[in-house]
């Protein structure tokens, strides 16, 4: 029997590293040019969960936007989870991610949401204050990731898979 599949949408401002995170996590089938043409690129990744049946994440890497237009909202339809990506070196990208979450919840009120603060390899340049992250952790699952080194990437996706399979 095939693994249960869940639609996961990657949301975040332009340049925060969504596509890099996906590339680190999966071997892409489609070219990234679809991000600039269609506005989305879809990949899939089977995730093994300890003590549970594996599940498949279908990753919709939506082109970076500060807000969701009508087309992007259609891309969100049927999503089970959101991976909000922010750039730790740009505090404004965190605000954008949270705004995107607010928009997405109007369409997907029960969606599982996880926040990834990317570019951990540049942690010394981070503008996002640790205190702010601690505050966010009270309402969101927050992961610190580095698409460049791969640190925290698997964990972020595994966290989402675990929550979806629960």
């Amino acid at each position, binding site marked *: 029997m095939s693994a249960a599949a869940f639609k996961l949408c990657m949301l975040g401002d332009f340049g925060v590293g969504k596509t890099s995170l996906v590339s680190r996590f999966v071997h892409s*089938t*489609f070219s990234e040019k*679809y991000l600039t043409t*269609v506005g989305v690129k879809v*990949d899939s990744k089977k995730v093994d969960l300890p003590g549970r049946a594996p599940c498949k994440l*279908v990753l*919709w890497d939506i082109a970076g936007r500060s807000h969701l237009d009508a087309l992007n909202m259609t891309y969100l*339809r049927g*999503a089970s989870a959101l991976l909000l990506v922010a750039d730790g070196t740009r505090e404004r990208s965190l605000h954008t991610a949270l705004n995107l979450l607010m928009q997405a919840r109007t369409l997907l009120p029960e969606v599982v949401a996880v926040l990834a603060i990317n570019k951990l390899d540049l942690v010394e340049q981070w503008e996002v204050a640790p205190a702010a992250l601690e505050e966010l952790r009270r309402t969101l699952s927050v992961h610190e990731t580095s698409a460049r080194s791969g640190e925290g990437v698997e964990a972020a996706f595994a966290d989402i898979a675990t929550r979806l399979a629960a």
Partner: protein
Amino acid sequence: MQHAESGNGDRLDAPVIRVAAPDAAAPASDLDRLKDILLGDELGALDALDARVEKVEREQSELPARLPGAIESAEQDGAERMAHALAKPVAHALGTAVRENRQVIVDVLFPVIGPAIRKAIAEALRNLVTDVNGAIESSFTPRGLRWRFEAWRSGVPYAQIAIKDTLNYGIDHVFLIERGSGLVLDRESAPHLPDLDSDAIAGMLTAIGEFVRDSVGSGGGTLDSARVGEHLLWVVHGPRANLACFLHGVPPPRLHALLEQRLEALHAGFGADGRSVDDASRESLHPEVLMYEARAADRSAALSASPWPMRIVSLAALALLGWMIVRNERANAWVESVRARLASHHGFVLTGIERQGRDALIARGLFDPDAEPVATALGDDAPRVTLDTVGYVSTDDAIVARRARRLLAAPQSVTIAVDGGALALGGRAVAAWVDTARERAAWVPGVRRVDFSVASESDEAARARDELDTLAGSLPERRVAFVRETELAPDAAAVFEAIVGDALRAQSLAATAGVSITWIATGTNDDPGSDATNARVRAERARWLADALAARGIADVRTAADDDASDVSQRSAFLRFVLAEAQP
């Protein structure tokens, strides 16, 4: 036990001790206090019931305002239960509305029905265009003719045969995709194809479909098909799932209808979660199953199609073919007829004949100027035949004879005959001509041998002979007419005198020419009368003429009563003569 009222007027169920309020103006009577003591519990129960009724009435009056919120909260708590609870009443209400307010329902559904009808019509026209294009493109090729023969033999429409043979196709993948999320509900692929990331492909397909729809901007439009080279994508849309079919080649139109039917069946068989697909449905999506059923549907449609249109077309084609064959045979027969007439025409050698247009010919050949014009051989066909001739000298006996008469300038008293190139000259002619002709006869082209036997005569005798020849032709034209039997007509006497004159002149000429004359009087009759009577009358008239001539000095006139019995034009008698060379 007694009950009390709350400060806001609501009656409470909790039992309390009822204490009568002191009222100096209306002191409670003993009877009232007794009632309170005896009926206190019942009065409390009545008050509680009043409160309940009042609460129910208030809730009912507030129900319309609270109902939308209640439905929304029920939808969040358990959508399936809510849907299940409302299914029957909504269906019943919809049925009642259709019966009682049909126009309202029609108005509401109009925006939906219109596009659906247009889509169905467009699909049907697309299928028709596909059939027509296939038929036209292959109509007159050898392969198309073979299909026509097969269609005629089997009774299957031509378009079906053409599509069956030409439209080789294959189904590579069939995706059942959840409409909202783009997740794959099922995927069936043809054997031996490399594995692929079906989730990613289904997701991208869904995203591209949304992108196209958003880009086009027309309300309700969908991405139904896409073609890249020989690869084709069909997307059949359903309310909960779409069916995406990846093909190569040119599939038959019935396959699309089959996919639509299959998607409808899948929607009817979705599990309780709206996503699960049972094994039977999964099997029905397999490419080989779909292709087999599409072929079966084609065959079924072919068998059920009326054979009459094809029969009529076949009959028309046969009639046309027959007419063409007959026309061609007639044209060939005409050509052969012209060829035979030209080939038998003396002095013309046919070297080639070819058609020019539908009913005209060009005949090429060699033509001797001494021959009769070719047009005489063609008769009425002459205007339709163009002659392209080159001159030549014929050795045909008839042409050589004509050539000899022309080159030798032979008089009519000279007979000319050619047989196998041998020229025979006979008769008589003046001595000068005889001398010249004897010398030149052998020079005539085509003459291999000369048999010259023309007798020489003096010029006077020759002239007498020529005049005798003329009289021999003109004398029988003079007719002595009779009214009946041997009773002369009014002008008969004058004619008779002319005959006498000619006869005397002939006798004189015969003496000069040295020939003897044999006279013959002949009687004729008209049509009425028996054969015996007519023969008698003819004999009497001939005798009358012979006797009359004898009376004028022209003796020894023979009669020919039975001669020329077929001449029934008039009641007459005439004279003719035969010359014979005088015995030496």
